[in-house]
């Protein structure tokens, strides 16, 4: 085989260090990820690190302003606001993650199916997606919660189902492109089944836009869950979430307007961090965007 020449290997790019280096130079990305990490740790450790019982009323200390011992004051039942914020972090975050996770799990397969099969399958799925995207999220979730009975699970399932079409659409659009790629034909020529082609070739090349969208949707999910809990259709007492805390703050607004700030700002900062996370994912996963 003397005719064969060994071409010099193409320039090897060390992509990982480059991306990481880029990442730690982005204040927004670093702040978002740090904030979310700390928050998740607090949410998990809450039962052990809360200074007070977040549920048991203390009628001796109703609606206290911030003071040493109760750094953010107490609520209408005399419960420590810091403790309640910590207790509410779990359900709030969990609802956001679970509803977005559910949406991915439901939406991605339908998007793959519609994009891969085309024809009538695609037409029917696409029209149903159009229809589902026409239901305003909160409106529909309130309706479902009303019919199935309000609970955190009902709320997050309703949100997950309503968010799913967004992922289905994104993945469908990518699938339409990827399924025509030559490596799909190559795989088929080796005898690959449709399932294998979808799992090995289409999904890994179609999922990026969905991942980026998931990051951004977490913020929307958090706000949606807060709205539901605020209206009383989300987390039910004695459990708490930031939205539920806002509902109580609303009821006592004239007496102690300060109460609305801790949960409101917690939601705001968390949503900002989710958006920061989404933006970061977008840049990391999109080869087009500049990383230098």
């Amino acid at each position, binding site marked *: 085989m003397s005719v064969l020449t060994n071409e010099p290997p*193409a320039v090897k790019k060390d992509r990982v260090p480059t991306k990481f280096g880029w990442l730690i130079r982005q204040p927004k990305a670093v702040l978002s990820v740090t904030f979310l990490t700390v928050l998740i740790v607090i949410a998990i450790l809450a039962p052990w690190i809360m200074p007070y019982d977040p549920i048991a009323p203390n009628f001796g200390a109703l609606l206290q302003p911030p003071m040493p011992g109760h750094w953010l004051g107490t609520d209408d039942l005399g419960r420590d606001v810091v403790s309640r914020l910590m207790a509410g972090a779990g359900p709030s975050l969990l609802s956001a993650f679970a509803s977005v996770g559910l949406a991915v799990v439901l939406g991605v397969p339908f998007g793959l199916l519609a994009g891969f099969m085309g024809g009538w399958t695609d037409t029917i799925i696409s029209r149903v997606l159009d229809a589902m995207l026409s239901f305003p999220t909160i409106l529909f979730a309130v309706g479902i919660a009303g019919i199935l009975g309000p609970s955190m699970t009902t709320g997050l399932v309703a949100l997950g189902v309503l968010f799913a079409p967004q992922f289905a659409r994104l993945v469908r659009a990518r699938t339409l492109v990827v399924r025509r790629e030559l490596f799909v034909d*190559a795989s088929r020529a080796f005898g690959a089944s449709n399932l294998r082609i979808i799992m090995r*070739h289409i999904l890994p090349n179609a999922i990026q836009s969905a991942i980026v969208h998931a990051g951004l949707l977490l913020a929307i999910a958090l706000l949606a869950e807060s709205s539901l809990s605020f209206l009383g259709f989300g987390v039910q007492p004695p459990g708490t979430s930031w939205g539920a805390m806002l509902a109580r703050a609303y009821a006592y607004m004239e007496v102690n307007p300060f109460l609305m700030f801790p949960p409101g700002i917690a939601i705001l900062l968390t949503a900002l961090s989710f958006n920061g996370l989404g933006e970061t994912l977008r840049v990391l996963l999109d080869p087009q965007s500049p990383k230098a």
Partner: protein
Amino acid sequence: MSTPLLSVKDMRITFHVNGGRDQLHAVDGVSFDLASGESLGIIGESGSGKSTIARAVLSLLRITRGEITMEGKTIVTPQSPGKPGNYGVQIIFQDPHAALNPRSKIIRSLVEPLEIQGKGNASSRRDMALEMLAKVGINRALADRYPHELSGGQKQRINIARALLLRPKILVADEATAALDVSIQADILNLYKDLQDEFGLSFIVITHDLAVASYVSDRIAVMYLGRFVELGPSATLATKSAHPYTRALMSAEPEALPRRLQKQDRLVLRGEIPSPVTPPSGCRFRTRCPIATDLCAAEAPPWREMSPGHYSACHFAEEVMAGKPLDGSDKPQNLESVK
């Protein structure tokens, strides 16, 4: 004669285009045989249906009419499309980069055919793949790279190695060198020849490049608008072509011809290849043929054997073979007057 390795009989492949309103016969009645160890070139302009033949032979699309047999056994008919990958035919595509999943390491792409066909276990598959890499001249260290880290020539060798892992009897190369630099092209073509010796492979080499076809092929088929117009031994086509289209292709690329023929009539093909949705009546080449007559518009020329193994579809095949000038100098009638 013994049974051919591969036999394609009267194959037609139809696409529905313009929202299903029109039919496009991308391949319209093509027949050919491929002997064991033989190398057949298929040449023709872009859009003539070469890739469609390749895909049909691989069972990557359904045929509308005809049949494909392998060693006498029917494997593809319109009613029962073949199962890709399990009758010993593999393919190399034109774009070496696009044929590899960008998110899989090379080794993962390489073992895929073995995985699909259930050959060996994880570690033996890896060994087979690395061994095959060596055979196509690729350093095994590249196995853990991603496609974007390799050059085009390296990627095409990897595609060849991958296709060979299933030990095919026939390798179809669909413009497999067209996207590569000329020097690397030659390397790949030499690799074909080595592999042919080592594995007893048969080749179908699809190209629009006459030089490539005549370098590697024993026989060449010339395709125009979904049909074969000429088929014969490479040397015969170069020296005694019996079809104006073949002659036109040759004169467009004189370097591919023996020196003594290079100064022959310089015929430049006029106009565009017509739409396969509405092919011309009679001879499909007549709208661009410099010697077309009324007969060519009225009747499709039959597929005739001019000499043993040399076929042509032209009403004036004898004259063309005898060296009739193609610049219309012996006859006033040319393209414009035919309509």
